[in-house]
């Protein structure tokens, strides 16, 4: 009985490690991991306001 319990624990830990590693390497997995461990998703804007101003100066205006 004790042997079975130890083996079961071993299998559960191995699957836990593999599932966490796999999730950390896939996009969907990362989202799920963040949800599971309640990590707030970072929201980065692609273009900052200062960048947008710079582009406005560089790019030619419509005439």
């Amino acid at each position, binding site marked *: 009985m004790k042997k*079975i319990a130890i*083996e*079961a624990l*071993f*299998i*559960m830990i*191995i*699957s*836990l490690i*593999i*599932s*966490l590693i*796999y*999730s950390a390497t896939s996009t*969907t*997995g990362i989202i*799920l*991991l963040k*949800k*599971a461990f*309640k990590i707030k998703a970072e929201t980065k804007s692609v273009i900052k306001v200062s960048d947008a101003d710079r582009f406005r100066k560089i790019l030619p205006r419509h005439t």
Partner: protein
Amino acid sequence: MSAAISFIFRIIIGGIFLVSGLAKISDPIRLIFTLRDFKLFPEIIVPFTAIYLPWLEFILGLLIIVGLLYRTSSLMLAFLNFAFMLAILSVIIRGIEVDCGCFGLLADMLKIPDMADMKAVIRNMLFIGMCFYISRAKKTMFPLENYFKKV
């Protein structure tokens, strides 16, 4: 004779859980929706279960097929199937119609009926019987365990 039966059961059970585990690993979002439909688990546990459960199924299936720690694996799979059966029964009793999510993407691809109904309960009972047979059988064919014992 019992060794051959045990081997056939190992291939069937191991194959089913290996494939269904893979199907769920490839689409965890679907599993999340299924788990939510069951209305059994708190929201905190759902994403973690969707990550962990398919891998547990996959590894147990793999261990049973190759014959490594197959007695413990089949017992664990029997308990897992018992839990699935209770979940499906609870859904039937509450009168909620949901997909059982047993085969994930595979159900759509092969057009297998995947509803949480009495057929699913009977199927799970059959799986539990097979798992107990594998764990209780004195001998089985081609287990990898024997190879490791010799080494």
